[in-house]
């Protein structure tokens, strides 16, 4: 019973300070919302991958693939089955159906492993239909509705466990559709195999090798891990910044409640009971804030998911549902992270309450010494972390090392900020010759302890903003320049049939300078889907197409027919440099081709390989000859488009001019970074809130410092201006420190994280105007955060200031 009264006394503090309570709840709710929102998006995307992977066991089961990268002969599959190997054949490829590319997956449900969803897809009554003409296929409801029965596809049944744009059919039918009779892409290996199997080499020689899912890197889960890690890092950063608010609110509440704690102890509350009840209070607040945060996180995830889905589609070709369906585990982990965050943010305050001496004589010197000790410790921690970041940047490898470097850099910089500020303020104080100046600098230094957490949060948000902003700007500058070089032809046309293609080219020939075929096939190279394009020997490519590195005369090499240019992603994946060879499966068998050049291919989720046009048509005679790039006078483009639309009945996507295509590409690019931009702004907003809450709470505690200065002749308005000046100066200083930290973050993102995440490296483009904009934003943040406290100070009734002296003891 007595504990209830102690708890009531503790809670009464919040009733008297509702704004402080609000900031605490808001900080925790926002932190939880951003974290759990990002987790919800990740969970939804991963569920989509699992659905896709589960269909073929892609992320779970080993595969047998060709050692040369070519297709597997069906005879090898039969030999393995006869030897007792439990394997199931899969053939993948693309066909054009009704003017669009469709991924065809040929499977054999009778031998498919139990871990896949194929058994569930093909019901007992449907097996016969699946195998025999007129056949039956399965697809995502959206795909099934659109393509069922459209030649050459069979009737399609809906099945939820499938990604859009893919059709699952019998393997025999797939071989016919893809014109790959007797060939297979890979064999899925069952999880359980009979004892005493002959070794793989004994059955198939050196033609096949076993590939674990993590080696193949083919699973969407693995491909997109880095993207989700990026999102998680942002979510975590926002969560940490949210915790700064909570920590500031709880810390200040702890300071304000010290007399209450002492009174409670004096009245007979033990320190254990006090801390226990503070824990109960915290738990209650965390549950309330966590619930609100989860609700906000759900809304946030719902708002972000369409853009994330677009980004994943653009970057990795991953199909993610735009609808949010959350599992109970999400609610549970979200609630747990809220409790954990509250615990972390409050740990120091709880410890202080537990260790609070019952008798606390005023010891300003001891306080000052403790402050110096804390600063020294912080400085040491900053030094250790920044050194670790430098070492990791030089010697670390991989994505985890990249993020560890980022973490060490950001936390080290944040810890170092109050130390640098204290040194700078002490220096100004020493140099100040006027009494007012000395008071100003000394008073700012005294405030530093209370404001340092908020300033650290601001530094983190600004640094990440500069870092991510510079990365996106670098990407934009590089991408747009690259786009200008890549999209040189003035017009692009796509026919639906070979006859239509013939009619188009015949019509357009008199209006154009050159008609350049854009023909391609898709193959699996060492288990990875690769687009193979035929490049006509034309100045359009020789003069404009940029190469990152190459052998001498790279264009002559591919025109000669035995060399290829490969995309940066493909080169990084297979560790290729100019002069190396890569094996490509063709109808006539494996083809060894020399890498003559490597080119950037930003935003392409799959690998790309460019060979001479003749080499393409010789080795893949069945290649669809439907798409063309047209060179012509730019001023003629509108007339030609109008003429073609008049002469033919065209779908909108069959004809596109260079300007529209560039605009479309830019649109896709911008959408890719919508999520990053949104999280960037939210993090900065949370930091602004942290500063606001600290300043507001502090303003109520500062009267004893300000009252004597007021009594000595400064007006309340002047005091308000002085306080504003302090806030702006501290924010400005923080922005100055944030600049180098942000640039280091940008470098790490471009040189380490992006290379791991997307497979390409971008040059760092510095855009100082953006820094100026962000500096102003920091000042504006401080201005907004200071406005209310300063307005309140300027309107403080003189009676309250006098009360400071009346209460002096």
């Amino acid at each position, binding site marked *: *019973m*007595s504990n209830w*009264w*102690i708890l*009531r*006394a503790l809670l*009464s*503090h919040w*009733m*008297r300070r509702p704004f402080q309570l609000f900031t605490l709840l808001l900080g925790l709710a926002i932190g939880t919302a951003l974290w759990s929102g990002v987790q919800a998006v990740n969970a939804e995307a991963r569920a989509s991958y699992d659905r896709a992977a589960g269909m073929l066991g892609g992320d779970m089961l080993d595969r047998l693939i060709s050692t040369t990268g070519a297709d597997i002969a069906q005879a090898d599959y039969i030999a393995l089955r006869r030897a007792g190997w439990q394997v199931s054949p899969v053939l993948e490829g693309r066909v054009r159906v009704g003017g669009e590319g469709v991924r065809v997956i040929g499977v054999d449900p009778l031998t498919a492993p139990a871990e896949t969803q194929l058994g569930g897809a093909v019901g007992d009554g449907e097996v016969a239909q699946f195998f025999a003409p007129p056949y039956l296929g399965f697809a995502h409801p959206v795909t099934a509705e659109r393509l069922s029965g459209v030649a050459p596809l069979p009737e399609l049944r809906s099945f939820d466990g499938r990604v859009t744009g893919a059709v699952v059919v019998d393997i025999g039918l797939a071989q016919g559709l893809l014109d790959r009779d007797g060939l297979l892409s890979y064999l899925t290996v069952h999880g359980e195999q009979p004892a005493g199997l002959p070794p793989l080499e004994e059955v198939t020689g050196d033609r096949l090798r076993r590939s674990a899912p993590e080696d193949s890197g083919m699973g969407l889960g693995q491909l997109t891990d880095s993207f989700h890690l990026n999102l998680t890092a942002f979510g975590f950063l926002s969560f940490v910044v949210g915790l700064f608010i909570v920590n500031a609110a709880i810390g200040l509440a702890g300071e304000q409640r010290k*007399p*209450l704690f*002492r*009174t*409670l*102890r*004096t*009245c*007979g*509350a*033990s*320190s*254990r*009971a006090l801390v226990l009840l503070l824990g109960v209070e915290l738990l209650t607040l965390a549950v309330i804030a966590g619930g609100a945060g989860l609700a906000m996180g759900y809304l946030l995830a719902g708002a972000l998911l369409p853009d994330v889905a677009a980004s994943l589609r653009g970057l990795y070709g991953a199909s993610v549902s735009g609808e949010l369906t959350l599992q109970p585990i999400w609610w549970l982990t979200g609630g747990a992270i809220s409790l954990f965050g509250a615990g972390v943010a409050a740990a120091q305050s709880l410890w202080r309450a537990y260790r609070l001496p*019952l*008798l606390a004589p005023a010891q300003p010197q001891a306080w000052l010494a403790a402050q110096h000790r804390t600063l020294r410790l912080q400085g040491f921690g900053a030094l250790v972390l920044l050194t670790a970041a430098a070492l990791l940047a030089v010697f670390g490898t991989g994505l985890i090392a990249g993020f560890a470097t980022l973490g060490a850099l950001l936390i080290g910089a944040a810890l170092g900020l109050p130390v640098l500020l204290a040194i700078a303020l002490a220096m100004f104080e020493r140099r100040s010759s006027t009494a007012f100046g000395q008071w100003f600098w000394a008073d700012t230094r005294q405030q530093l302890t209370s404001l340092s957490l908020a300033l650290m949060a601001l530094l983190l948000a600004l640094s990440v903003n500069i870092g991510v902003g510079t990365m996106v700007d670098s990407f934009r500058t590089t991408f747009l320049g690259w786009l200008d070089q890549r999209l040189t032809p003035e017009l692009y046309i796509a026919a639906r049939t070979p006859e239509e293609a013939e009619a188009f080219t015949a019509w357009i020939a008199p209006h154009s300078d050159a008609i350049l075929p854009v023909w391609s096939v898709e193959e699996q190279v060492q288990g990875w889907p690769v687009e193979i394009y035929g490049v006509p020997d034309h100045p359009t490519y020789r003069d404009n197409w940029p190469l990152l590195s190459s052998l001498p005369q790279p264009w002559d090499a591919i025109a000669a027919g035995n060399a290829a240019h490969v995309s940066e992603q493909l080169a990084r994946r297979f560790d290729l440099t100019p002069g190396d060879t890569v094996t490509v499966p063709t109808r006539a068998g494996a083809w060894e081709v020399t890498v003559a050049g490597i080119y950037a291919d930003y935003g392409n989720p799959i690998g790309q390989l460019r060979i001479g046009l003749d080499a393409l048509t010789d080795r893949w005679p069945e290649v669809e000859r439907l798409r063309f790039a047209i060179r012509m006078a730019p001023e003629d483009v509108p007339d030609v488009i109008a003429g073609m639309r008049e002469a033919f009945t065209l779908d909108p996507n069959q004809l596109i001019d260079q300007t529209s295509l560039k605009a479309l590409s830019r649109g896709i690019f911008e959408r890719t970074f919508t999520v990053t931009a949104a999280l960037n702004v939210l993090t900065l907003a949370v930091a602004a809130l942290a500063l606001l809450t600290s300043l507001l709470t502090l303003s109520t505690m500062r009267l004893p410092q300000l009252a004597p200065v007021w009594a000595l002749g400064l007006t309340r308005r002047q005091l308000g201006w002085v306080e504003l000046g302090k806030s702006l100066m501290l924010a400005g200083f923080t922005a100055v420190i944030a600049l180098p930290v942000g640039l280091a973050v940008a470098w790490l993102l471009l040189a380490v994280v992006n290379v791991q995440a997307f497979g390409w490296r971008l040059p760092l483009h510095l855009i100082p105007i953006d820094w100026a904009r962000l500096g102003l934003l920091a000042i504006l943040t401080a201005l907004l955060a200071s406005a209310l406290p300063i307005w309140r100070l300027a309107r403080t009734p003189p009676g309250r200031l006098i009360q400071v002296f009346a209460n002096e*003891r």
Partner: protein
Amino acid sequence: MLSVTDVEKSYPSANGPVPVLRGVSLSLEAGETLALTGDSGSGKSTLLHLIGGLDLVDGGRIEVAGTDLSGLGDKPRAELRRATLGIVFQQFNLIASLPVQDNIAFQARLAGRHDRDWCAHLTDRLGLEGLERRYPEQLSGGQQQRVAIARTLAARPSLILADEPTGNLDEAASANVLALTLELVQETGAAFLMVTHSRELAGRLGRRLHLSSGRLA
């Protein structure tokens, strides 16, 4: 009720321990009142804190209601303060976020001895009626001190310790508040130990001891 035997206490300093109490002994029976006087720094407040279980002795022994404080941990000392002791501070130490009526009832509720009628009686006797719903910051210094006294008496402790309870009041008000306090203490039958600078106020209590340089004169 209270037995203090050869109590020693010193505080650490840069130049080594500074002795504050050097072998202090005294005793107090139920219903008795005792004034402890002495100059600043003589160790009066330190002795009061030690008796109140707010700090621990370096040497000697303090017994409150038969319980030896020297070996007690935090929890039993807290229980003793809650159940047996009442402490009135010069700084009032009211709970700023609770109204007057809840401040008065607070310790009695912790001790499980809340008596509504007794609280009303104290409120009436100490001239606090009409102020029950106000918060401490809305009261004058004298009013706050009377709330602090009411809070202590409301729990009916066996031993009341008062550290300069009227130190923030003028002379006349001090005399009035003390007279009232003593009357109420008498009603409860508690032992009363008060630390004060004022010889005049000390003279109103049953016994008087003078502390000088850590020793009883």
